[in-house]
């Protein structure tokens, strides 16, 4: 058999290739992981350690840096803010997105194609271009510096509509029709038939948008000024620049970053497959 050409060559010829592959992967992984590692080791250092570039590991781990952030800083509050605001936003985005995607796939109406074209067009446009008028709208409604403002302005996810539409299109129309014949309203058909069948799209949608909202920085930082309403990115940045901590309290800043980043890495470790299968498979195109 001559087909498996790459496996056929003798081992000694394949060695340079294997070594090259290992080197590239090792370099990429080190490059990627290094900032995380550096963040963690720096967060455990004393002020003296921090300034001494000759030592990599802390001379003695300063767990107090971490507990200080956890118990004596606003960072945990920002994390909670981010978490619950993101949960609410993602829940709203899932409901509104699923309904629109259902309408686009299973309902018949005249303006369906136009509606999809509009959604498609907004997907590509830079969000930032909407910020000034959106800011004015929230100001007029009097909800600028509030959780409500953050939530109200983010109840729809165009990415999510795409993702769900893609998933819904895989479902045979007959199933929804059968549910209708069985007496189900469109609302029930969506949540009892379509949703369980496209569970993975919903999970991917939820996770991606949760992370995106949780980490979001520019828009929340424009509309919230009171630290009570800060999401985690804005809070972290405020912590970073406050009272000249910038440049002096590096260990604390790294500890704060670590407290923010590590839970996300743990979340990611448990949900990895939904990200990897979900986003890779949903380019919206064949390939």
């Amino acid at each position, binding site marked *: 058999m001559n087909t498996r050409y790459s496996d056929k060559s003798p081992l000694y010829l394949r060695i340079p290739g294997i070594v090259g592959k290992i080197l590239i992967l090792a370099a990429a992984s080190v490059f*990627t*992981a290094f900032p995380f590692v550096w963040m963690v080791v720096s967060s455990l250092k004393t002020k003296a350690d921090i300034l001494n570039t000759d030592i990599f590991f802390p001379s003695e781990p300063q767990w107090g840096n971490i507990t200080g952030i956890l118990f004596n800083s606003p960072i945990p509050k920002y994390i909670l803010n981010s978490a619950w605001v993101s949960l609410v936003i993602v829940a709203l985005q899932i409901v509104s997105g699923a309904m629109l995607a259902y309408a686009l796939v299973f309902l018949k109406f005249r303006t369906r194609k136009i509606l999809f074209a509009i959604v498609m067009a907004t997907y590509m446009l830079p969000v930032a*271009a909407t910020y000034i008028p959106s800011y004015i709208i929230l100001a007029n409604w009097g909800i600028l510096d509030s959780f409500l403002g953050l939530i109200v302005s983010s109840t729809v996810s165009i990415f999510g509509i795409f993702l769900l539409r893609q998933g819904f299109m895989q479902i045979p129309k007959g199933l929804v029709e059968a549910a209708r014949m069985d007496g189900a309203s469109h609302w029930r058909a969506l949540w009892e038939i379509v949703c369980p069948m496209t569970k993975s799209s919903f999970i991917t949608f939820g996770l991606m948008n949760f992370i995106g909202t949780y980490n979001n920085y520019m828009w929340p930082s424009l509309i919230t000024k009171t630290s009570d309403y800060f999401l985690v990115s804005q809070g972290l940045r405020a912590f970073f620049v406050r009272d000249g901590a910038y440049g002096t309290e590096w260990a604390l800043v790294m500890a704060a970053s670590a407290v923010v980043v590590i839970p996300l890495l743990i979340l990611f470790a448990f949900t990895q497959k939904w990200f990897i299968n979900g986003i890779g498979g949903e380019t919206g195109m064949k390939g």
Partner: protein
Amino acid sequence: MSTPKVKRKFKRRYDKLPTVLLFVLPALIPLIVFWIYPICRSVYLSFTNWDFISPTYKIVGLKNYISLFRNPRFFEALGHTVVFTAGTLIPTIVLGLVLALLLVRNFHGSGILKFILFSPWITPTVAISIVWTWIYKTDGGIANTILTALGASPLKWISSSDTAMLSVIIVTVWKSLGYAMIFYLSALERVPGELYEAVALDGASKWRTFFDITLPCISPTTFFLMIITMVNSLQAYDQIQVLTQGGPSGSTRTLLYMYYQLGFQEFNMGQATAVAVVMILLTVGLSVIQFKASEKWVHY
């Protein structure tokens, strides 16, 4: 004959209207209020001299655009945007593909590598940019420590206008590399195996196989990534805000950052929205060009 027909059409359209509205409006209303209306409003504001504070403003025609096009800062920012976009797009896509090619066949530990390589994408840009600020620190930063250890001369990274853009690009590529890799991984898995067998029977070399089979088969993903990376690069804000705030001396001020400064620091809403319109046109223009070009090299 004509009356019943009119009546019929009317009826057909409005029969199920309540259901359709119920399903469409929860997404459509926010979409209109926070997307479509603001875009239109931005275009309108770009023809005014509004300063955000005074209640009245005038239509000034193309004045905002004219002064923008006379402002060297604008062309500087445009240039930075182009450099930044190209500087992130090309390495992200090329390195993302290389990593995907190396990881497409599962081996012991490949799962961990995928985890590591993708993890920057899920962490807050602000948090990791703060870490990078510390890494880039001119004295005592680990980046320079490594450079010195390797025998190279230390750089000033984000403190010098020569290297600031490079520093921001490195952080951006670091963050988006894994994302591109994941897309390529799933694209590579979908290349039909028979194609490889067929081309092997034809006696093609490894490189030929790659260029004749693999690249064309994954071209839709490449195209998708180019669009997405481009749109993301045009909108990059977090890392610039944390690392350099557009500095030093404007060397990392992109169009978006200029928009932010004009709108939310100088409250020159007319000029700011004019920049926003330029960004929209740029996005649309680049997308159209890419779509047109894609007909030549993307194979569905």
